């Protein structure tokens, strides 16, 4: 059989990344704008003030335009697990499929059913009934996010499962373990950061109305809600981001090392505020990882963030490859070479097991497998060729992480200033312009977060279980290139269509009479 060449894996990654990036352009606005629409309609129902109804309807129309394309790209993403990552689908489908199915049953129908009522039910439901439909639609979207993020979190931290020799795949041991702290952190961080994006969008668009001196009363109402939602959300995003970083430090040390451009581990590790990565740096040369960098001037801040102990040791890329340091759980880290050797032993044992099992000799089969019980967790390492393959794209992860964090700081400042200035924002043209500029920055920030999450997991499709080269479908590279470009053209065309429709709708403004 011909070897799976690298370009197939790269094209398959590119296709999934492209679909996910497009999908994530629309999902955070659905979640964030959805919450703001719910709050506005709640105020309308409580106060009876028709102006709040007009505001609700305006933002709901924008929500609908965005929602359709989000749903479309999401469907592709779900099926791409099967089309492009067939080994992945089989090997971990026992665990990964369940959250997707639950998402369909619990969330999709809730979302779709109440979306219809939300748009077409204004004259058919009571005020309270319509409000309930709006909340249920947005809750449905959020539950949907919970299950898909649970599935993604399991790819970062595959808890509640083990490799079963008889079925030659991973099997679930306990469903509740799949709902790990990593899953909850990921869910809260992704959802509250989506609220930030939604709030930034509403604030920015409202400031455009103020700049144009149009629909001022509507814009001021929207600014008020967006500023409050935005400030609460960004504070929660920072808190959940911190707990996510602690999970990364404990479960994905290579990702943390890439996020910080850390090649040689240290105690009292400092957090890099920003820097320029040295492109010549590799794990096996002695060059400085940075051309230039500025550290946060707090001693041991990175160590503290990771462990709440500013003196703790944070491993770098080389430490993770060479092993020998004490991990956060107190055990000694194995080197890559040791893990690879154990993985190859487990791989041979699985092959032997299969031969005995097919000959109905279950005693010998179980004996072979039991002998390697300690090594089965390293099975995935058997498919990794060399140490260099263990390292993600450090510059990409580093820059993405730092851009995300810096933009997060900017949004915190933006919402604080917007709240302080709320009475005077109508005259603060500079703030209106900044708020408008922040809309694309919020999208950039959101995308960067996913780049850190996904690129940082390299070379694993499932962390420490299944590397990408063993997860991919056996297809001709040309087939993947064909579907890649097909979807690229389609998604880009639809994005252009969406943006032009949305801009036209915004220019039209709310129906205030």
């Amino acid at each position, binding site marked *: *059989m011909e070897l*799976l060449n690298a370009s197939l894996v790269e094209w398959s990654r590119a296709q999934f990344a492209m679909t996910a990036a497009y999908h994530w352009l629309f999902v955070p606005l659905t979640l964030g704008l959805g919450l703001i629409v719910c709050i506005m309609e709640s105020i309308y129902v409580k106060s009876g003030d028709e102006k709040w109804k007009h505001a609700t309807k305006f933002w709901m129309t924008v929500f609908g*335009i965005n929602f*359709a394309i989000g749903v*479309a*790209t*999401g*469907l*592709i993403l*779900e*099926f791409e*697990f*099967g*089309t492009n990552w*067939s*080994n992945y*689908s*089989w*090997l971990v*489908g*026992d665990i990964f*499929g*369940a959250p*997707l*199915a639950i*998402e*369909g*049953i*619990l969330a*999709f*129908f809730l979302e*779709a*059913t109440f979306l*219809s*009522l939300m748009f077409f*039910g204004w004259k*058919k439901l009571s005020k309270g009934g319509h409000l309930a439909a709006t909340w249920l639609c947005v809750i449905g979207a959020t539950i949907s996010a919970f299950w898909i993020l649970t599935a993604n979190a399991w790819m970062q931290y595959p808890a509640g499962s083990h490799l*079963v020799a008889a*079925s*030659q*795949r991973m*099997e*679930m041991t*306990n*469903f509740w373990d799949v709902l790990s702290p990593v899953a909850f952190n990921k869910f809260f961080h992704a959802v509250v950061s989506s609220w930030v994006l939604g709030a930034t969008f509403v604030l920015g668009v409202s400031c455009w109305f103020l700049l144009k001196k149009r629909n001022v009363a509507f814009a001021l109402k929207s600014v008020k809600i967006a500023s409050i939602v935005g400030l609460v959300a960004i504070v929660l995003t920072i808190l959940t981001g911190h707990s996510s970083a602690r999970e990364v430090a404990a479960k994905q040390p290579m990702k943390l090392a890439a996020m910080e451009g850390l090649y040689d581990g240290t105690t009292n590790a400092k957090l890099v505020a920003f820097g320029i990565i040295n492109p010549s740096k590799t794990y096996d040369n002695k060059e400085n990882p940075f051309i230039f960098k500025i550290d946060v001037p707090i001693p041991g801040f990175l160590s503290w963030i990771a462990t709440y102990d500013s003196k703790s040791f944070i491993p770098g890329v080389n430490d993770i490859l060479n092993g020998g340091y004490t991990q956060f759980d107190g055990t000694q880290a194995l080197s890559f070479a040791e893990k690879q050797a154990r993985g190859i032993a487990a791989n*041979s044992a699985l092959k032997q097991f*299969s031969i005995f099992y097919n000959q109905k000799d279950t005693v010998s089969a179980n004996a072979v497998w039991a002998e390697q019980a300690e090594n089965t967790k390293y099975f995935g390492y058997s498919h990794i060729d060399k140490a260099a393959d263990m390292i993600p794209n450090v510059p990409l992860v580093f820059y993405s992480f730092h851009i995300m964090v810096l933009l997060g700081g900017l949004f915190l400042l933006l919402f604080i200033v917007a709240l302080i200035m709320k009475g005077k924002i109508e005259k603060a043209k500079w703030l209106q312009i900044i708020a408008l500029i922040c809309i694309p920055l919020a999208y950039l920030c959101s995308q960067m977060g996913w780049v850190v999450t996904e690129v940082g997991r390299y070379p694993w499709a499932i962390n420490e279980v299944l590397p990408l080269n*063993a997860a991919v*479908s*056996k297809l*001709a590279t040309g*087939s993947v290139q064909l*579907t890649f470009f097909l979807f690229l053209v*389609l998604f880009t065309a*639809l994005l252009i*269509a969406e943006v*032009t*429709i949305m801009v*036209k*709708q915004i220019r039209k403004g709310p129906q205030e009479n």
Partner: protein
Amino acid sequence: MMTLSFLQNYWWFIVSLLGGILVFLLFVQGGQSLIFQLAKNTDERKLLVNVLGRKWGFTYTTLATFGGGFFASFPLFYSTSFSGAIYVWMLLLLCFVLQAVSYEYMDKPGNIFGAKTYQIFLFINGLLATVLIGTAVATFYTGSDFTVNKINLTDLGAPTVSVWNSAWHGIEAAFNVHNLCLGVTIFFLARTLALLYFINRISAKHETILARVRKQLWINAIIFVVFFLAFVIWTFLSKGFAVNPDTQEVFMQPFKYFLNLWQMPVVLIFFLLGVVAVLYGIGITLFCKGNRRGIWFAGVGTVVTVACLLLIAGWNNTAFYPATPDLQSSLTLKNASSSLTTLKTMFFVSFLVPFVLAYIFWAWRVLEKKQTDIAEVKSEEDDY
């Protein structure tokens, strides 16, 4: 009671039921393929689009749930079929993407591609989605060109478990007349159901368009019945992919699918009832003028008939996704399913399905209290 075998069969039932519901909901696609034929002016087009537009989300959601359900319960099917028949599935997904945006963007100001483009998108979705789903499902009875070897996972050079042999990646199924027969059946069934739905939903004020709908119903229903009978008779007379329950060896058995019905009389009774309900729904609409309830009989009949056809593809020791080059690579309920723990977890989750169906029914009733006319559509602020 909760043995692995019971849960494998239970989940095949759930998947079959979801498949039945999905085929019924394809009436939206059938309706989309009729817009150009039925609507002769902008108002009529708007009326049809709005009558269908409030339902597209259900078909879409059911497709996603069907995919998720299959992934969770039979992951080997998910990995084998989707990666192997990739061109078919990608084409199918592509036309569903077109559908999702078409309703929302078609008549919005600032629509740079023009309303006509989105109407063509809807037609493409109506044609391709039905024909491709039908053709793909037919391979459950005729087989596909793949091999599965789980131990490949330990091969450090080529660890792929499921390998598709044809470079056409699923398109080759459309060149098999038996498969295509089901594709055409589903296309005309979807159109027939759409016509029954239009008769149910469109206000009697629109006599002209309703007359066109009734005329089309005759044509589409006859073609559907002819192709349905051809597919069913052909399948029942063909050899099927049987599984030896003791050795799990797959072998060809004459009249396997007919025997499955015969050996499972409850399924046979439901299958016959389903077929009768579909024909009754069509019949009362065609022969009893003024009767608008045909869609309910034909709809329920479709769900039951399709579910029964899928049940006989997997139950009673049958390989539900047969591999033609190597029979032993065929997927069965036993070798393709998830583990006991996962199926058990999903078993409890499936209890929520009646609750979901209840609120969908309620929401449907709220939105469809009276029949739709163009004046009502135009009075809506969020019409399509």
